[in-house]
């Protein structure tokens, strides 16, 4: 018996829990050199902004222990070019498409969502709230619960399909942000974006990426995001999409056991662009071996006494 791999994010049914992460799969079509992207649960686009953005000066990437720092600066072709040039290609490739958007002003999130709402083959929206809020003196949208609520409330009004809020992990208690997203009607939360990190060249004494600090991704962050997925799973009922350091199929299973409904593969694609195909195969074998008939049975199935968890007691 082949295990049932389907999972749901709100009304959106994914054929399996494996998605690609925003900004790590180009616009999706680049991956089709390596495997058939229609086998994925979903492809998540690079963060799109209203106007095209050229991004930050180099260096934009640097390797660190079991991870990398990036500071791309949201380089992207803009929402219109994406709809006109990329959507037809992606549709032809048979991919289920979720579009990730980013902005520096609340109004721009709304404008972006309106622009995308009309295209029915955009099956879901993921809000990247990790950008500096220009009005509030550069505080990240995602580190202020009030602003997050406002954005989700307003986007929810204009976008009728699956709405997912991608949370930043750089906060004291991420579950508060997840609860706010749930309260405003989000269908799911992505836990989480990258962690603020930094590296220095000891000879030049310069930072190894132009913006000094950048986002840490890769296996290094997996235990951290795992703890956050677990925390959020105890705080909300909407599905969680886990994103952080998934490099082997076991990581997918770990995240689901900890409470995730789906996962996003990011940095792993840089080394193994066909990794999602391998994960799907191995997951199937694992489920059969463990006599699990539906992957959804894994979700939140951690065997643990909650009274032992200091991290949760805090909340």
């Amino acid at each position, binding site marked *: 018996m082949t295990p049932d791999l389907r999972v749901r994010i709100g009304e959106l049914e994914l054929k399996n829990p494996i998605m690609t992460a925003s900004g790590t799969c180009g616009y999706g079509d680049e991956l089709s*050199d390596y495997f058939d992207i229609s086998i994925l649960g979903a492809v998540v686009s690079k963060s799109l902004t209203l106007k095209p953005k050229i991004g930050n*000066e180099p260096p934009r990437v640097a390797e660190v*222990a079991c991870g990398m720092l990036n500071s791309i600066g949201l380089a992207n072709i803009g929402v219109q070019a994406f709809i006109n040039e990329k959507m037809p290609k992606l549709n032809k490739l048979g991919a289920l498409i979720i579009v990730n958007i980013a902005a520096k002003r609340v109004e721009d999130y709304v404008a972006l969502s309106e622009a995308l709402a009309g295209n029915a083959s955009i099956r879901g929206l993921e809000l990247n709230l990790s950008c500096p809020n220009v009005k509030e003196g550069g505080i990240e949208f995602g580190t202020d619960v009030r602003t997050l609520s406002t954005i989700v409330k307003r986007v929810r009004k204009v976008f009728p399909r699956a709405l997912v809020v991608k949370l930043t992990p750089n906060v004291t208690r991420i579950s508060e942000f997840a609860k706010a997203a749930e309260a405003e009607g989000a269908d799911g939360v992505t836990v989480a974006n990258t962690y603020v990190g930094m590296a220095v060249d000891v000879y030049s004494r310069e930072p190894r990426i132009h913006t000094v600090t950048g986002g840490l991704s890769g296996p290094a962050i997996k235990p951290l995001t795992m703890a956050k997925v677990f925390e959020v799973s105890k705080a909300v009922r909407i599905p969680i999409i886990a994103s952080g350091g998934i*490099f082997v199929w076991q990581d997918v299973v770990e995240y689901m056991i900890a409470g995730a409904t789906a996962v996003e593969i990011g*940095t792993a694609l840089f*080394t193994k662009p066909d990794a999602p195909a391998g994960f799907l195969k191995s997951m199937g074998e694992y489920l059969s071996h463990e006599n699990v008939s539906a992957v959804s049975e894994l979700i939140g199935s951690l065997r643990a006494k909650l009274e032992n968890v200091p991290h949760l007691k805090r909340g």
Partner: protein
Amino acid sequence: MPGNCFLESAIIVQTREVAESTYITGLKSRLIAPLVTPGQFLMVSFPETSDPLLPRAFSVCDATADTLSLFYVAVGRGTRRISKLKPGESLVLNGPLGKGFPEMRSAQKIWAAVGGSGAALIPILARAASKTSADIHFYYGARTGKQLVGFDEAANLEYATDDGSKGFRGNVVQLLIEKMKNGMPDLLFGCGPTPMLISMQKEFGARVPTYLSVETPMACGMGLCQGCPVRKAGKKDYYLACKDGPVFRSNEIEFEADL
């Protein structure tokens, strides 16, 4: 371009130390080797460890029907690791990636300036030139003679060393300036350290059709990450070194000011 790039687990045939901490490693490659053109590169990754995590970029040094070779200087953990692999062990290759040098035509007079790990391109350029009967000359520079690697593949090759220990005394750009006093090539190729490329752009960019192979940090090599920007000349915009390059026409790009 679906179907034009491959992930391939390639078996090491042999590794030779060809100069101080400089190696050539030959690998069996059934899928990638037949497709490579000069100037294209591979991303090389390591099975079984997350540290080093990211794949490393290498130009293809030479490629035949089912083998290819890498020419590299062991500067860090990735290159040191490759240099120590034994025949029979394997590496994962992703390629061929990027856009290489323009196709060479019969009787075209081409000068290729190379330095450092840029010398990787001598064999593959020599092979491609001989196939189309292009007339290619190599100018190969280094700090000192000991760093120069002998390549049998190149019929016409002149050396430049800073200390004059082999060939012309001076850098490869100074050598080219000398040579141009007696005539110009149809095309000029450059592959080497960024300061050398900057100097080629300044000296020759306006006078000769010049193509430069640039090196930037790269995380993916496939256009997935936007990590490898190269400034477009005169515009507030970037190319991606991995997809639009690594070879660019010299007048299309600008180098970063602080390099």
